[in-house]
C-alpha cells in the first residue's frame, strides 16, 4: 500500500490499472483526458499490460467497449459530458448485451451554453439506460469504487456495465491523499474476469443488438435488464462488505453522516457532499440537529435503505446539481417517489438546485437550507423549489446582457 497525493483522474486510472483491464477504447475530452493519458503512459512504459485503441468518436468507443466485453475480456473506458451525449445511442444499447465493463464519467455540465465545469445533468441522461451508476465524493473513493464497479458489473446475477462518476475539476483535477492498494491485495478482492458464457469468438459466432418483432419478447428482455439492475443492490452490499473487510474502507449504498439523531437532513450527491459535511459540523456546533445522506448508488436506486435512514425525520433538503428542464431536480423526484405514502416519511421535502456548471455552494447556503426546512415545518407549508442564485449573480448577468444589448443595437445600424 502506498499513500500518494493524486488527482481524481489519476485515481480512476489506478483503478483501471489495478483491475488489470485488458482493453481500453478511448477518446479524449476535457476534463477526462488525464485518465487516458495516464493509462497510455503506463502502457507505453510497460507498467500496464492493456490494449488501448483510440477511436474516432465516443459512439464507436462505447460500441467497441460492449463488443470487447462480449468476447470475455475486462474492459475500461472513460468519457465526459458531450462525449457521453455523443455515445448515448450505444449507452442505451450495450446494457442489453449483458456484457459487463466499467465506464468512468467525469461530470461536466451540458450545452447550451458550453461549460467545462461540473454538474450531473450529463450522467443523469444515462440514468434509464441499464448502466448501473456509482457516484464518488473523494479521490480515494474514485479508485476504490472503480474496483468495486468491476465486481458489481461482473456479478453473476447482474452482468451489466457500470458507470463510476466523479466531478470535473472538484475531483478530476484536485489532488488529495489516496491510498493505492497493493496489486496482490486487489487481485484477491477482484480476481480475473470470469466471462461465464459471455465469450464471443470468431469460431463461435453470436449476434448482439438484435431486433425482436413484437412487444412480448421486447417487454421480456427490457424488464429482465431492469431486474438485473435491481439485483445490483444486494450484490453491491455484499461486494462493499468484502471491500471493507479487506481494505477497511466502508462504502455503503448510502453514506450517512451524523444523521442517526438528526431532525433535518441534507441529501446531496457527488463531491459537493463533502462541503455539506463541513456545513453539518458547523451546524452541529451551533446546536442544530442536522445530518447528511449521500447516495453512492444512483442505479439501482437504494429505495429501502433511504426509507430507513429518513424515517421520522422532520425535513429533508435535496440539493440537485442537475436540472431536468420543465420539472426541476432529478434527485428530488427520485426521493419523493421513494418516500411518498410511507407513514413515517419526512413531511417536508424541499428542492434546491445548486452547483450548476460548478457554481460554488457557500456554507451559509447550507445553513439557510436548514432554516427553510424549519420555517416550512412551522408554517406547515412545503417550500417552493429554490435555485441557488443570488442578487449579485443576477447583477453580473444583467451587466453582460447590457453589453450584449449595446452590441446588438449597434450591429443593427
Amino acid at each position, binding site marked *: 500500500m502506498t499513500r500518494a*497525493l493524486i488527482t481524481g483522474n489519476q485515481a480512476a486510472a489506478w483503478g483501471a490499472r489495478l483491475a488489470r483491464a485488458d482493453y481500453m477504447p478511448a477518446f479524449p475530452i476535457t476534463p477526462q483526458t488525464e485518465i487516458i493519458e495516464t493509462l497510455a503512459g503506463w502502457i507505453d512504459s510497460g507498467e500496464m499490460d492493456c490494449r488501448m485503441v483510440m477511436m474516432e468518436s465516443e459512439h464507436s468507443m462505447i460500441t467497441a467497449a460492449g463488443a470487447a466485453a462480449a468476447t470475455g475480456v475486462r474492459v475500461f473506458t472513460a468519457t465526459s459530458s458531450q462525449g457521453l451525449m455523443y455515445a448515448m445511442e450505444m449507452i442505451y444499447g450495450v446494457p442489453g448485451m449483458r456484457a459487463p465493463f466499467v465506464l468512468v464519467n467525469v461530470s461536466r455540465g451540458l450545452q*447550451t*451554453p458550453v461549460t*467545462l465545469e461540473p454538474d450531473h445533468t450529463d450522467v443523469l441522461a444515462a440514468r434509464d439506460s441499464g448502466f448501473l451508476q456509482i457516484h464518488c465524493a473523494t479521490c480515494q473513493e474514485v479508485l476504490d469504487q472503480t474496483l468495486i464497479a468491476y465486481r458489481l458489473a461482473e456479478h453473476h446475477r447482474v452482468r451489466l456495465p457500470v458507470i463510476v462518476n466523479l466531478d470535473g*475539476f*472538484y475531483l478530476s*483535477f*484536485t*489532488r*488529495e*491523499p489516496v491510498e493505492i492498494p497493493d496489486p496482490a491485495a486487489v487481485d484477491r478482492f477482484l480476481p480475473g474476469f470470469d466471462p461465464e458464457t459471455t465469450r464471443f469468438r470468431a469460431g463461435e459466432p453470436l449476434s448482439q443488438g438484435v431486433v425482436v418483432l413484437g412487444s412480448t419478447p421486447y417487454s421480456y428482455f427490457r424488464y429482465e435488464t431492469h431486474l438485473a439492475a435491481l439485483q445490483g443492490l444486494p450484490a453491491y452490499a455484499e461486494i462493499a462488505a468484502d471491500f471493507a473487510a479487506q481494505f477497511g474502507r466502508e462504502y455503503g449504498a448510502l453514506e450517512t453522516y451524523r444523521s442517526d439523531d438528526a431532525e433535518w437532513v441534507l441529501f446531496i450527491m457527488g*463531491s*459537493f457532499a*463533502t*462541503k455539506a*459535511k*463541513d456545513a453539518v*459540523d*458547523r*451546524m452541529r*456546533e*451551533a446546536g*442544530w440537529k442536522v445530518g447528511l445522506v449521500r447516495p453512492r448508488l444512483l442505479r439501482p436506486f437504494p429505495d429501502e435503505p433511504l426509507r430507513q435512514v429518513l424515517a421520522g425525520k422532520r425535513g429533508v433538503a435535496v440539493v440537485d446539481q442537475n436540472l431536468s428542464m420543465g420539472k426541476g431536480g432529478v434527485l428530488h423526484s427520485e426521493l419523493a417517489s421513494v418516500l411518498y405514502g410511507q407513514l413515517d416519511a419526512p413531511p417536508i421535502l424541499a428542492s434546491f438546485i445548486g452547483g450548476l456548471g*460548478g457554481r*460554488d455552494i*457557500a*456554507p*451559509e*447556503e447550507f*445553513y*439557510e437550507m436548514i*432554516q427553510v426546512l424549519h420555517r416550512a415545518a412551522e408554517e406547515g407549508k412545503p417550500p417552493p423549489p*429554490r*435555485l*441557488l*442564485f*443570488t*442578487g*449579485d449573480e*443576477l447583477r453580473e448577468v444583467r451587466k453582460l*446582457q447590457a453589453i*450584449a*444589448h449595446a*452590441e*446588438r443595437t*449597434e*450591429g443593427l445600424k
Partner: protein
Amino acid sequence: MYRIRFHGRGGQGTKTASRMLGTAFFLAGYQVQDAPRYGAERRGAPIFAYVRAAKEAIHERGVIREPNLVVVADDSLVPVPAAGVLQGATARSVMLISSSESAATWRDRLNFPGTVLTLPAEASEQAELCFVGAACTGAAARLLGVIPRAILEAAVREELSALGEDIIRRNLEQALAAFDCMEPHAGSVNEGVAFSVADAKAPDWIDLPVDESDAAAAAIHASATSVEVRTGLWRVLRPVIDYDRCNRCWWVCSEFCPDSAIKVDADGRPEIDYDHCKGCMICVAQCPPHAIAAVPEQEFSEKTP
C-alpha cells in the same frame, strides 16, 4: 486550516508551484488538497491554483473564499479583474507579490486589508520566467513557517522528478533562495478559521424572472468580437522580427501563426499584430533564417512604464 491561492500566467509554473507546496505539506504530515483552475489552457492566460492543508481531513472544496496567503507570480495580473487576485482577502491575509516594486508601493496602490510582502528582485532577477513558480513556492513555505527547508527540497525533487537533474537543480536554487530570503517573515501566515453559523449572513437568494427568449439565449450578436479581446496581454515573451535577417519569404511566419496575428504586405514584409499575438513563439521556431527573437515582455514594460 491553511488556505493558499497562487496566481500566475500559463507557462510560469503556477500549477507546479501549488503542487510543490501541496507535496511539501503532505511530506510534513498534513492532509492536503491542491488544484488548478483555468478555462481553456493556454500560455500567458491568467490561471490560479489553490492549496488547502490541515491536520484533520479536509471537506472544503473548490475556490478559496478567504485566503490566508495569496501568492502572485506575475504582478501584471493585479489590475486584471478577471484574475481575481484580491478576491476574499481580509485583514488576516498575507499577499506575496513577485515584483521589482516595493511592498509599500503595492500596499498603497491596492489598499490591501492585510499584509503585503514582495519577493524581491534579488531572489527572482536571474530567474527565467518559468522558474518564478519555484521561487514562489519557496517563499510561501517560509511564510507558512511549518515546512522545513529539507522537506521543501524533497517536495521540489518529487514534483519535478520526471524533468531531469538540471531542471531540478535550477528550480531548487530558486526555491531555496526564496525560502532563505523570507526568513524575517517566517511564520507570518496564520491558519484560517471555520465559517461558523453565528458569523454567517443569510444568502441573498433571488427568484429569477422569466426573460424574453432573445435575451435568455446564449448568443453573441456582435460580429468580430475576438478583435476586441486584446489577447496580446497574455504574452510573456514577445517575438521581434530582425528585418535585416528576414528574407521576405512572405509566408512561413504568417502561415504558422495560429492566431493570424502576422500580416505580410505586398513586398513580403511581415508585421506582427502585438494586440493579438499571444506569444506562443511558433513563428520564432519556424522562421528559416532565424530572424525572429523572443524577448521577455518585462524589457518593454521597463522602457515604457
